[in-house]
C-alpha cells in the first residue's frame, strides 16, 4: 500500500441533510492532491472528518494501511495529519517563535517554559520551508502571507506526513501565491503528502498532480493533471454548464444616487471616490483585506470613515451610526449571516421586522400585530422564503433561505441603496442564482446596489461596472462589457493602487 490516506464510503449527514454521500478517495505517500468544489459541496466536512473534528456516520478511514472507523483530533495529529485553516488559528499577540513552538511545547507537558528550546524548534521549522520570518516579531504585525507561513511552520514542527491547506490563497497576491506553491512542492519533495483545497482553478491547475471534484457531497470525478482543464472542472463542480447571463443595466443619464468623494479611514481605506446610479449594480472586488468590507462598514455606519464626503440624492450626509445609514436609505447584507445578518435564536418573522419595527407601532406604542403580520407575510412571499410559518427559528433554515431573510429584512425598509458584502458565500449554486435574480429585480425597481464579492464571475456577470480594490485603494475601474473574467482576476492579483492618473487599467491589462 503506497497510499497514505484512503477513504472508503465516508458518509455524514447533519439533521437530515447529507453533507457527504459515500466518499471514496485515496492520497498517495507524497502526492499533491487538489480538492475542488463549490461552497457547500462538503469540502469542509471532509477535511474535518480527516482531522478528527467530526465523526463520519459510516465508512472507513485507512491511514498508512490501518483502518479507523473514526479519528479523534489527537489521533489524527499523532498520525501526522495537519490542517491549516483559512484563519490560521494563530495567537496574534505572541511572537512567531512562540506560535510555531506552541503545540510541541504543550505536548511535552513541561510546567516551565524553555525559551531556548522555543527558538530552536521555531528555527528548525522555518529552515524547513526556507521562510523569511523574523522569529521575534509579534504575529499580529505580520502580513497575511507571513502569518500563513507561520502556520505552515507550526504544522511542520512535529513529524508531519500529510498537510491539508484549506483555501490557502484567498488573501494572497500573485507573488505570494507563487511562493506558497513553491513551498508546497518543496514539502512534497521531503516526502509529505499535501491536500490543497481551493476553488481557484488556475492555482489548482498549476500545482495539482490529481484533482478531486466534490459536488453536493459526492466525489464526482478524480482527474489526472493531464485530463483537467478549467472548463472541465467548472462543469464538474457545478453539475451544469453554468452560463451566467449578463445583467445589462439600462444606461441612464440620471444624476447619481450615491456619490462618495475621497472617503478615508486610517489603516482601512484611502481616498475612495465613486458614484452609483439608480438601478445600477456596481461591483467591488479585491483580495481579502483589500479594504472592501471596511468601506462597506463605513458606508453603513458600523465603523464610520475619518474623512471624505458622502452624498445621497444630492444631500451631503454624515454617517456616524447605523441609524444614520438607515435614515439615508442604505441597507447592508453582511457576509457573516450567522452572527451579523440574523438573530439565529429568533423567528423568521422577528428577523424580518427588525429594521421596520418603528413603523409597526400601533395603539399606545405597542406593536400592531396586524401590521406586523402583513409586513412579514408580504416579504416572505416576495422573496419566496421557504418556511412552514414565520415563527420558525432562523437557525433552522438553509443558507440560501437565511440570506433571503436578511434581504427581506432590508427590502422591507424600502432602501435606496443596498450593499451586499459577499452575500452568496457558502450558498449552493441554485440558491445563489436565486439570490442573483432577486438582486437584479431590485435593481430594475430602481434600487442602487453595491455588490462586493470574491467571486469574479459573480461581479462580472451581475454588474455593469467593477471597482477593484487593493491595499485600501481603488486600483482599477472597469466596465464589464469590455473585460473577461480572467482579465478581472488578473487585475485583482496584480494591480497596484491607482495613482493620480487613470491610466492604470490599460497598462496592467
Amino acid at each position: 500500500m503506497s497510499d497514505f490516506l484512503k477513504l472508503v464510503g465516508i458518509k455524514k449527514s447533519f439533521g437530515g441533510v447529507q453533507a457527504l454521500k459515500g466518499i471514496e478517495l485515496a492520497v498517495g505517500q507524497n502526492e499533491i492532491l487538489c480538492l475542488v468544489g463549490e461552497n457547500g459541496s462538503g469540502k469542509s466536512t471532509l477535511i474535518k472528518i480527516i482531522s478528527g473534528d467530526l465523526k463520519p456516520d459510516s465508512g472507513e478511514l485507512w491511514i498508512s494501511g490501518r483502518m479507523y472507523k473514526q479519528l479523534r483530533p489527537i489521533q489524527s495529529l499523532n498520525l501526522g495529519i495537519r490542517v491549516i485553516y483559512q484563519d490560521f488559528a494563530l495567537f496574534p499577540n505572541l511572537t512567531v517563535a512562540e506560535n510555531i513552538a506552541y503545540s510541541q511545547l504543550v505536548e511535552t507537558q513541561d510546567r516551565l517554559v524553555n525559551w531556548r528550546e522555543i527558538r530552536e524548534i521555531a528555527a528548525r521549522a522555518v529552515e524547513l520551508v526556507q521562510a523569511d520570518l523574523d522569529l521575534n516579531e509579534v504575529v499580529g504585525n505580520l502580513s497575511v502571507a507571513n502569518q500563513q507561513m507561520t502556520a505552515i511552520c507550526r504544522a511542520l514542527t512535529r513529524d508531519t506526513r500529510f498537510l491539508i491547506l484549506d483555501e490557502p490563497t484567498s488573501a494572497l497576491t500573485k507573488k505570494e501565491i507563487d511562493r506558497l506553491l513553491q513551498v508546497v512542492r518543496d514539502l512534497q519533495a521531503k516526502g509529505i503528502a499535501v491536500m490543497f483545497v481551493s476553488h481557484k482553478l488556475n492555482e489548482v491547475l498549476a500545482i495539482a498532480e490529481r484533482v478531486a471534484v466534490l459536488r453536493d457531497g459526492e466525489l464526482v470525478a478524480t482527474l489526472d493533471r493531464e485530463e483537467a482543464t478549467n472548463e472541465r472542472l467548472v462543469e464538474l463542480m457545478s453539475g451544469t454548464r453554468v452560463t451566467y447571463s449578463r445583467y445589462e443595466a439600462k444606461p441612464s443619464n440620471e444624476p447619481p444616487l450615491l456619490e462618495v468623494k475621497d472617503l478615508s479611514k486610517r489603516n482601512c481605506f484611502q481616498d475612495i471616490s465613486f458614484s452609483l446610479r439608480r438601478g445600477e449594480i456596481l461591483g467591488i472586488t479585491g483580495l481579502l483585506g483589500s479594504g472592501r468590507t471596511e468601506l462597506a462598514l463605513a458606508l453603513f455606519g458600523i465603523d464610520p470613515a475619518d474623512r471624505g464626503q458622502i452624498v445621497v440624492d444630492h444631500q451631503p450626509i454624515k454617517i456616524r451610526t447605523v441609524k444614520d445609514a438607515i435614515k439615508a436609505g442604505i441597507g447592508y447584507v453582511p457576509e457573516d449571516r450567522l452572527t451579523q445578518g440574523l438573530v439565529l435564536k429568533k423567528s423568521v418573522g422577528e428577523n424580518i421586522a427588525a429594521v421596520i419595527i418603528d413603523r409597526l407601532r400601533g395603539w399606545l406604542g405597542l406593536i400592531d400585530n396586524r401590521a406586523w403580520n402583513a409586513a412579514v407575510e408580504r416579504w416572505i412571499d416576495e422573496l419566496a422564503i421557504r418556511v412552514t410559518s414565520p415563527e420558525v427559528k432562523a437557525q433552522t433554515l438553509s443558507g440560501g433561505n437565511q440570506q433571503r431573510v436578511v434581504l427581506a429584512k432590508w427590502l422591507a425598509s424600502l432602501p435606496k441603496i443596498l450593499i451586499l458584502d459577499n452575500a452568496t458565500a457558502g450558498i449552493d449554486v441554485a440558491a445563489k442564482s436565486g439570490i442573483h435574480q432577486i438582486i437584479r429585480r431590485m435593481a430594475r425597481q430602481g434600487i442602487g446596489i453595491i455588490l462586493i464579492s470574491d467571486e469574479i464571475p459573480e461581479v462580472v456577470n451581475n454588474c455593469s461596472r467593477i471597482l477593484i480594490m487593493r491595499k485600501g485603494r481603488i486600483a482599477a475601474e472597469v466596465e464589464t462589457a469590455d473585460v473577461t473574467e480572467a482579465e478581472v482576476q488578473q487585475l485583482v492579483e496584480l494591480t497596484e493602487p491607482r495613482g493620480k492618473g487613470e491610466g492604470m487599467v490599460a497598462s496592467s491589462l
Partner: protein
Amino acid sequence: MRRRSSNATLYLVLIIVLAIMAVLNPTRFLRVRNFYSMAYQLPFLAFLAMGQMVPIVGGGINLAIVATANFTGIITAMLLRALSGGSPLEASTLVILVSMLGGVLAALLAGALSGFLIGYLRVPDILATLGTMILLNGVNIVLTKGYTLTGFPDALIAIGNGVFLGIPIPFWLFLAIAVVFRMIMERSVFGYQLYMIGSSYTASRFAGINTRSVIMGSYLLSSLFAAITAFVMMGQLNSVKANYAESYLLVSVLACFLGGVDPLGGDGRVSGLVLAVMILQVISTGVNLMRMDPFFILAMWGFIVLVIIAANHLSGRFRLQRPLRGLGQDSGLADG
C-alpha cells in the same frame, strides 16, 4: 404573532409544591389566613425578580438591584424627614409624594450609571453593576451612618402594609404592574428590541437597533422596579437600612432562571417568572409553618431550581442549542 414557550413544567411544579406543603402542614397550610400572608409577602420578591428579568433578557444582569432599593428607601426617608421639618409621621401628602419622587429619581440615577457603563462604554454587565452596587452600598452607609431610619407616615406604609377589599395593597399593585410589565416585555417595541439584543447583540446592531438606548432603558426600568420594591419594603418593615435584604439579590436571579428566563439572554416570559415567584413563595411559607430553620428555605429554593433546570435539560429546552449546521451551512462556516 410570536411563538412563546409553554409554562407546563412550572404549573406542574407549582401544583406539586402546593400539594407537598398541604400534606406536610395538614391543619395550617390550606387556610385563608395563610394565603393572605402569601399575598402579602409575594410582591416584594416579584418586583425584585421583574427588575432582574429586564437586564437578563437583554443579555446582562443587575447586581445593584438590592443596593438600589436600599438607596431609594434611604433617600426617600431622608427627604421625608428634611421636608417635614423633622416629624415625618405628620408629613403632608405633597411631601410624601415629593420624597418618593426623589427616591425614584435616585434609583433612576443609579440605573443610568449602570446603563451608561454597559450600553455606551460596553463595560461587561457584571463588572459595571458590581461597581454600582459597591458604590451604592458605600453611599448608603455614609448617608445613614449605619443606623436604621424608622417612622414613616401611614400613607407610605399602606403601600406595603395596607388592605383593600380584603386583599393586601401590595398584591393589588403586583397584579396591576405584572399586566403592564407583560405588555412592555412582550408587546412593545422596546421589549422586542430588548429580546433581539439579548439574543444577538451584533446582529441587532447590524439591523439598526439602537443598542445603546435600549440597554440604557433596560437598566432604568430595572431600577424603577428596585424603587417600587423599596416602597413595599418600607411599608412592611417600617424602616430602612443600608444593607437590608442583601440575600435577595441572588434570589431574584434564581427566580428568573426558575421562570425560564434564558441565562444567556433573549428568552423568557413574564408569566413564567410570575409562576416561579409563586413557587418560591409557597415553599418559603410552607417551610415557615413547619417551624424549621429559616435558612432551610434558601436550601429548598436552591434545590427546586436545580431540579427544574435538570428536568428542563433532560427535556431539551434549556440546553444550549446547537445550531443546525447541516442545513446548507456546514461548509458556510469554513468555506466562506
